[in-house]
């Protein structure tokens, strides 16, 4: 069977465009995974669900769509009903999709759904003796370990890194995450469906729009409601503003981490200008609360549009100017070029996704490949680089920030008239849908199932950092310890979004 055959047998699923789902048995699960991997499909997420009569493991794959643009994708969701760990393990798919490993470990510790794959260590839950975690030891003359975290130097999120080094050279990095685990999947199940967007926005503060949109998209899909065109435009404006703000912050920090404080002051100034313009346009510096079920909570008026336009003009002048300075700075080039390299073949094998993927020739962008409204009408230029090093991830941020500035301008011009929110009926019990949004870091997936009387039965949010954290362990190999902050920042992965 081919991927097309698997898709043909699948049923359409509500939520993001191009979603199909198929229930399979263990044999078909593994066969489908092998077939999809062979065709170059990518694993979007894998999670457990113990809310039905029979627990299930679910996996979402981005697969090539028939016809259309060569990179056009559809999403195939496979559902595997499984027995509890004590009875029988389900077939793991790490062999075909290495990124599945940690997702399977999380499903095992959270829901008791054990895969057959070899790594059975806990992942997000630390247990009573967290210091007993079995890090992989590197042996040899002169090898020693550097433990870092959970509290890091700087104003950043907590996590633990264990470096095995010889001299300054890193032989191996092993990550230990889960410190910001807040039990959000269980928390979702205590909330009404129409309130869940508030928690979704707070899963990962730098991606508030991405998460709340993915949640709302799933909810609106299961309620069979299409949001008004004006609301779709305003959501996209919010998502692109979030993308620009994060890219500006990262570009400044990437200068600073290479000893170029000028970059930090210049870019943090631009970011502050953007946040202030965002506040004038949409009522808040960070867009928590912008996206609500059925649309958006805040309309954009003429004064707000003017504030945004002024700011985008300034960004349009300043970003290229600063790029020239970064590009011509020998010290910066020396630190960026060749640092933290992820060659395209490795990126494809490990499933590197989103922004970091596009810097390693994995040219996928849902806004182009599987667009929801309004992106089909307003396609951005897809940005791509092949070198896969820090320099490439910096270049992608420059390209995308500028592209999004233009996109916001286009989205804000001639806004369609009409309401920016519609009433949402409560979806029936058992309704299911999956939202999928290309946020600044990569694709965010939210799988949602309705419970009785407007409650949430199950909500699984998936951050693209799940795929990219393991790749960071590869990117650092053979680099020197002092380059780690720079390489880490060039990925800028989420802790809170990942830790659930």
């Amino acid at each position, binding site marked *: 069977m081919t991927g097309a055959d698997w898709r043909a047998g699948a049923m359409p699923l509500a939520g993001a465009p191009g979603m199909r789902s198929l229930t399979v048995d263990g044999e078909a699960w593994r066969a489908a995974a092998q077939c999809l991997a062979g065709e170059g499909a990518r694993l979007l997420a894998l999670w457990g669900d113990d809310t039905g009569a029979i627990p299930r493991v679910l996996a979402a794959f981005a697969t090539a769509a028939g016809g259309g643009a060569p990179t056009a994708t559809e999403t195939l969701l496979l559902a595997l009903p499984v027995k509890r760990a004590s009875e029988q393990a389900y077939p793991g798919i790490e062999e075909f999709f290495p990124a599945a490993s940690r997702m399977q470990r999380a499903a095992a510790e959270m829901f008791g759904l054990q895969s057959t794959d070899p790594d059975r260590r806990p992942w997000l839950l630390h247990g009573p003796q967290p210091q007993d975690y079995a890090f992989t030891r590197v042996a040899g003359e002169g090898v020693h370990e550097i433990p870092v975290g959970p509290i890091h130097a*700087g104003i950043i999120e907590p996590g633990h890194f264990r470096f095995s080094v010889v001299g300054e050279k890193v032989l191996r990095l092993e990550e230990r995450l889960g*410190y910001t685990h807040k039990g959000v999947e269980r928390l979702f199940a205590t909330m009404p469906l129409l309130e869940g967007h508030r928690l979704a926005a707070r899963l990962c503060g730098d991606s508030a729009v991405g998460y709340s949109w993915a949640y709302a998209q799933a909810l609106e899909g299961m309620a069979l409601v299409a949001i008004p065109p004006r609301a779709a435009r305003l959501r996209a404006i919010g998502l692109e503003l979030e993308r620009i703000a994060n890219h500006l912050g990262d570009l400044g920090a990437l200068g600073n981490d290479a000893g170029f404080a000028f970059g930090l002051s210049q870019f943090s100034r631009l970011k502050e200008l953007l946040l202030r313009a965002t506040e004038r346009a949409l009522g808040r510096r960070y867009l928590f609360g912008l996206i609500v079920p059925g649309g958006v909570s805040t309309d954009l008026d003429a004064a707000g549009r003017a504030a945004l336009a002024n700011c985008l003009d300034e960004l349009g002048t300043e970003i290229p100017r600063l790029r020239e300075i970064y590009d011509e700075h020998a010290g910066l080039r020396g630190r960026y070029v060749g640092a933290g390299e992820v060659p395209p073949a490795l990126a494809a094998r490990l499933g590197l996704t989103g922004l970091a993927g596009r810097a390693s020739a994995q040219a996928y962008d849902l806004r182009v490949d599987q667009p929801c409204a309004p992106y089909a009408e307003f396609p951005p230029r897809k940005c791509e680089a092949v070198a896969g090093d820090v320099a490439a991830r910096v270049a992608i941020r420059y390209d995308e920030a500028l592209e999004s500035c233009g996109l916001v301008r286009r989205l804000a011009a001639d806004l369609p008239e009409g309401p920016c929110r519609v009433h949402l009926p409560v979806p029936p019990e058992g309704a299911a849908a999956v939202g999928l949004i290309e946020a600044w870091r990569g694709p965010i997936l939210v799988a949602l199932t309705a419970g009785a009387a407007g409650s949430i039965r199950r909500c699984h949010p998936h951050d693209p950092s799940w795929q990219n954290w393991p790749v960071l362990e590869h990117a650092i190999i053979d680099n020197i310890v002092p380059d780690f902050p720079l390489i880490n920042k060039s990925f800028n992965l989420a802790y809170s979004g990942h830790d659930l």
Partner: protein
Amino acid sequence: MLKTLRQIARIGCVTEPPVEADEALRLRVRLQAQILDVLGRALCIRAIDAGSCNGCELEMQALANPFYNLEGIGIRFVASPRHADMLLVTGPVTSQMRSALERAYAATPDPKLVVAIGECACSGGIFGAGTACVGRVANVIPVDAAVAGCPPSPEQIMSAILTAITAPPTTPM
């Protein structure tokens, strides 16, 4: 190099001058006087994310931008609790960050101040307290000042720092 210098000259100093009647600026002038009264030197702050969504961290990072220029008035973020006078703590404290937070607090020399930043740090926020979360920061270590907001603005965070320095420091429990 010429382009870099030209850019510096072109942008100039964007730190808003303290003579203007601007709430953020007025706060900053008072802030400096208070710090000198209490500490007689620069205030050193250690930021600790005890489980936040990262939203509050973004606004704390903004304090270093040229508009707020916190370092310009003698306040800086340091890399170790052993160098700190004050801890700025965000997040609902997660169960898995609790011991790290307690150890960082113990490692901070006395007299020390703690400021809880953001709705979750003040009350547990939308995450509350349960198995995975311990809830507000005050459930774990003594807190001298707290500012809600999701996230609080840079001005509000500065205001919270001021509140902490004017109140008498608590003694560790």
